[in-house]
């Protein structure tokens, strides 16, 4: 093997490594949404009577802006309520009377959590709980209500 082919081989190998690893890193970090373990996110919980249709990873919105996502949905076995844990942007702080509601984007779109900030002066600490919540609206239930209760009148 001559010196020329050796150095062009090294160049080709280096190019593959740089471009390939760069693409892999971009896919994993930018698209894979890999959160840095060091960033301190603003974690909040909210209790809902029903979190029907909400999924882990659903987005959280304030004033139409995506500010975080749902990390877990669990059942509180004592009160039979769903506890939804959310992870919001690090710098954000919400007033203690903020309202969390589960909404649907569009008529058949996915469910998300909408937070409406209140006017209180004290802020929810990280790990705190939003007390005022509205559960998801079940369209089937609404329709059956109209059908069956409308007949009685």
């Amino acid at each position, binding site marked *: 093997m001559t010196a020329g082919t050796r150095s062009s081989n090294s160049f080709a*190998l280096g190019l*593959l*490594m740089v*471009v390939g690893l760069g*693409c*892999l890193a971009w*896919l*994993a970090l930018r698209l*894979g*949404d890999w959160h840095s373990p060091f960033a301190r996110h603003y974690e909040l919980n909210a209790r809902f009577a029903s979190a029907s249709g909400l999924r882990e990873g659903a987005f959280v919105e304030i004033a139409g802006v995506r500010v975080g996502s749902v990390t877990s949905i669990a059942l509180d076995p004592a009160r039979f309520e769903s506890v939804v844990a959310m992870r919001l942007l690090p710098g954000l702080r919400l007033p203690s009377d903020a309202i969390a509601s589960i909404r649907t984007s569009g008529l058949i779109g996915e469910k998300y959590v909408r937070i409406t900030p209140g006017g209180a002066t004290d802020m929810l600490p990280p790990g705190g709980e939003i007390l005022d919540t509205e559960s998801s609206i079940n369209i089937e239930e609404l329709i059956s209500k109209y059908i069956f209760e409308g007949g009685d009148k």
Partner: protein
Amino acid sequence: MSPTSLATTLQRRVINLGAMGLFLGQVLRRLPHRAARAGTLAGLVVAIGSRSMGLMIVAGGFVGAMLAVQFFDTLSRFGSPSMLGAAVGLGLIRELGPVLAALIVLGRAGSALAAEVASMRGSQQLDALACMAIDPLAYLMVPRLIACLISLPLLTAIFDVAGLLGGMCIGALSFGSSAGIFLDSAASGIGPADVRMGFVKSVVFAALIGWICLGKGFLAPAVRGTEDVSRVSADAVVIASMSILGADYLLSALMS
């Protein structure tokens, strides 16, 4: 076909499969102590990986553009063309990227590997190595398998990124959606599990390509001329491509 010849064929198939399994076991056992120098491995990665990079960029760009055109039409019917980035990205990263990159590498490098090893068998180079007390499995097969395992995941990542860029260009140029919306939709739609799935698939496909192409060449029974070499390499490509598609289904079913 008479019952006896059917039984003979079946028996031969089972024996071949067993020999391939034995070959894989022997190569895997020699993975820790490699006999080849690092320079050999680098040359093989260049031959399998670097020389396919341009191919990945071109093929990935076209596939991404095609996906954008197809998904834009479908998504428009459901009123959510803003999901274009997520649709193209998920299709590429979970499914088309690993499979198409593997099939292209199989056609370009896998067939060459099978033909190379089969002609080594035919010209008795493998026997010559064994006579010199050099283990052909450790010296020739192991570095080739490792080169496949290094190259294909990187090539798949390049294919995915090229596809996303191709889809983004079509989305921005033809459908008036901006590059930012496309990438944001892709970033919000794709999760770590999707990237992991694509990566696992590409590693498994690389192992399949290495195993089947090298094994078919190494175990080729009677290589007497050029015709036998081409038969072995065609066989290897057919079997490997079927295995890749089958494994793709299994992995998709298992990991989703």
